[in-house]
């Protein structure tokens, strides 16, 4: 009954899916080219170490993020803890922090010369590094803590939205049946939130897999580093693309597993946005403990690193405050905004296509448009340049064939390349967020709407869009922030004389002069906060 979608919807869904996956295909194609015995050499020597480190990093970040985000999300959704009003948006703040900046700051703090070790030395009378043991922040463990402390809000946001959409009556029933809050959490909230948690964790896993700046700074050798070394060091795009292809296979398997684990589970709830008059009751000391837990997360991922940045910025203010700032900020804001809106539109298009076009394979466009998320930015940039370069060359050849003057690099030399790169990379985030919203709309609503004689398009406008607006907000927000922070692709794809704030800050961080880039870093973070505030207001209102 749903299958009468207009032809233009069907074709545009597939076209978008295919367009967004094209750079990935270009990379896989490169990976299938022979790379001589280089790949075998890598397998014989270092590859297993890289794989080992990557697996440990992803598992570590996943487990730690879960331990941070799930309790926090549940406290915020279900309990009345002190400072709840502030905490529920404060817990999103770490999302605005680029991981490599946080890494730079904690290195300043926990390094030998940093304040922590200096105080320890003063207190205990130690002289040099050989007199005592102190955990090294530049390690796998350090990378896990830093990455988890800025990525956990993904899971927090999705889990909290899911908890909020759970009917309070379920909790009340559990309490009436004599269950403790913890039991209610484990046996009702957690299983109901499983789809959202799965989406959140897979987002975090893919972000971690693609991270380059942080692991590079901490000298943790992961697969992104392997791709990079192979491409830059050995100069072999083929071998680098082979490794990227392997990473891609892992991601596809992860996603398939995630989908398989919830294949038969469809969770529908009524009473969305119901009044939340009755929160779970906790003892006062439990409440304070919960609040302490949440605030320490905010401090770790935001308050502390941000204060350090403010301190640096005031120290080096005269060096940093230049006219370029407004330009870089506008560049960044513009690009991130365009990408966020486009990604959300795409997510709605392919997400609803999957729901309404009830035929085998209707979820393929959504899966295709998410593939680029797994590709490290540096490699993705090449994946963009291959088709765009081809387009440019064909266009110029065509124009010149007819005796005209070619327009030059219309696609690959302009902002279009950057926008395309970000879209390929971040549409997955929007698709995930929008899809988990769409999945929660009971099919009965569709049936009612169709029975009332609505066309599919009208049904989407009147029924679906209003119900998924919260998910769309989340999508726009997440993509906006990610685009603002994106670094490696921007470094390669940006046009002449064009800096984003991230590329500008990175110059300084990579040279261990984070102090000089502090002001620009603060701008990235503050601009990133605006959508966070809008989002938290909108959640508040609903």
């Amino acid at each position, binding site marked *: 009954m749903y299958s009468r979608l207009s032809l233009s919807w069907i074709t545009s869904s597939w076209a978008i899916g295919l367009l967004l996956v094209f750079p990935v295909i270009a990379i896989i194609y490169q990976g299938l080219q022979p790379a001589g015995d280089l790949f075998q*050499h*890598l397998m014989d*020597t*270092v590859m297993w*170490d890289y794989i080992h480190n990557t697996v440990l990093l992803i598992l570590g970040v996943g487990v730690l993020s879960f331990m941070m985000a799930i309790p926090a999300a549940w406290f915020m959704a279900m309990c009345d803890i002190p400072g709840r009003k502030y905490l529920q948006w404060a817990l999103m703040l770490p999302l605005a922090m680029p991981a490599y900046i946080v890494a730079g700051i904690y290195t300043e703090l926990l390094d*030998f*010369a940093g304040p922590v070790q200096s105080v320890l030395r003063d207190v205990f009378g130690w*002289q*040099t*590094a*050989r007199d005592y043991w102190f955990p*090294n922040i*530049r390690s796998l463990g350090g990378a896990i803590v830093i990455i988890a402390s800025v990525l956990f809000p993904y899971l927090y946001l999705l889990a909290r939205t899911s908890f909020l959409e759970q009917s309070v009556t379920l909790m009340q029933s559990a309490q009436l049946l004599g269950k403790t809050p913890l039991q209610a959490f484990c046996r009702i909230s957690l299983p109901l939130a499983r789809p959202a948690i799965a989406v959140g964790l897979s987002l975090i896993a893919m972000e971690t897999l693609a991270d380059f700046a942080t692991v590079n700074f*901490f*000298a943790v*050798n992961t697969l992104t580093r392997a791709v*990079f*070394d192979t*491409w*830059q*060091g*050995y*100069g072999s*795009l083929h071998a680098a693309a082979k490794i990227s292809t392997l990473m891609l296979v892992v991601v596809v398997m992860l996603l398939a597993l995630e989908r398989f684990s919830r294949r038969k589970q469809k969770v529908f709830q009524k009473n969305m946005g119901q009044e939340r008059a009755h929160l779970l009751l906790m003892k006062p000391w439990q409440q304070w403990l919960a609040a302490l837990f949440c605030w320490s997360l905010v401090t770790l991922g935001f308050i502390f690193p941000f204060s350090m940045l403010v301190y640096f910025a005031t120290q080096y203010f005269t060096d940093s405050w230049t006219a370029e700032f407004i330009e870089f900020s506008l560049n960044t804001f513009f690009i991130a905004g*365009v990408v966020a*809106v*486009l990604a959300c*539109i795409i997510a709605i298009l392919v997400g609803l296509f999957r729901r309404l076009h009830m035929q085998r394979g209707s979820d393929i466009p959504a899966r295709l448009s998410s593939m680029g998320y797994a590709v490290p930015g*540096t490699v993705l*940039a*090449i994946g963009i*340049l*291959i088709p765009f*370069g081809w387009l*440019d*060359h064909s266009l*110029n050849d065509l124009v010149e064939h007819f005796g005209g003057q*070619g327009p*030059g*690099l*219309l696609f*690959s*030399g*302009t*902002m*279009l390349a950057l*926008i395309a790169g970000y879209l390929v990379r971040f549409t997955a985030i929007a698709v995930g967020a929008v899809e988990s919203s769409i999945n929660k709309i009971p099919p009965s609503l569709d049936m009612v709407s169709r029975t009332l004689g609505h066309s599919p398009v009208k049904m989407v406008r009147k029924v679906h869009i209003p119900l998924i607006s919260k998910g769309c907000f989340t999508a726009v927000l997440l993509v906006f922030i990610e685009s603002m922070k994106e670094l490696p692709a921007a*470094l*390669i794809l*940006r*046009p*002449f*004389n064009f800096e984003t704030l991230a590329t500008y800050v990175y*110059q300084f961080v*990579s*040279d*261990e002069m984070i102090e000089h880039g502090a002001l620009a870093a603060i701008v990235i973070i503050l601009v990133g906060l605006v959508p966070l505030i809008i989002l938290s207001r909108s959640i508040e209102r609903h």
Partner: protein
Amino acid sequence: MKKSFILASVVLSSVLASASSWAAKEEVNVYSYRQSFLIEPIMAKFTEETGVKVNIVFAKDGLIERLEREGKLSPADLVLTTDISRSVELVEKDLVQPVQSEALEGNIPAQYRDPADQWFALTTRVRNVYSSKDRLGKQPELNYEDLADAKFKGKICTRSGKHPYNVALISSMIVANGEAETKKWLEGVKANLARKPQGNDRDQVKAIKEGFCDVSLGNNYYLGKMLNDEKQVAWANAVEINFPNQANRGTHVNISGVSLTKFAPNKDNAVKLMEFLSDDTAQKIYAEVNFEYPVKPGVAVSELVSSWGEFKSDTIPLAEIAKQRPVALKLLDEVKFDL
């Protein structure tokens, strides 16, 4: 759908507008592996003298690949590199063209240009060994080979072995001592490392100051940079700078270079800029601001650099060193130097 169409056309037109804005008149486009804050003062001088605008894309990685993809449509005129292997890579991938210029030939001695005139060095930089002032003192007798000696067990710090500066050093050792000997040397150095290779050259000097290690590898100009930084001057004061292998083949020296791209659309201006970069004004800035060794004979090094004294530099041709790069990388993987 209508809205998204309007949005898309707004985006497209603004993109096109920005595209046409750099199709202006007198300008030259530079892909730079060198950090922009260093070269900007030099470029500003060039614009001041000639009226030619310089557009720069700076990136540590990926510029050659971008150039390759853009092919004959590339807007880039010049590529600035930070070591010999990138310059040679440009030639090997057929992305650059020879430049016949009397000014360049006059300014740059023959050993610092490609015999086929496809790359030109603008500065030279030395791969020094830094040693702890307190614990080791000056090491005038030191050879790179000694770093594998058991007496340095747990005392050496370095950045990633795969960084181009280290790869070039290792390549030069392969040329001097052969592959098998160099592999043994790398194993010895790895066994002597105080910690996993990490950070940049400055971090290793900092680590010496803090007592993690006694010796480190680092380029010469970092010491100058650190001495002029309020925070880092204390690190710099904790170390001595040493020029290894003075009794034999000499200290390893690398270059920063420039090449003219194959399809340079602003060729005349680009050659003008190349000549400017090799001439007194620019060479002086390289020497004074960045503490590098200018290639043009007669341009003085900075006072600080000259206080380190004269030294003998390794005369292995740079092209030979660049040729050993794949072997050096292979050895680094085999001994798992960074892992």
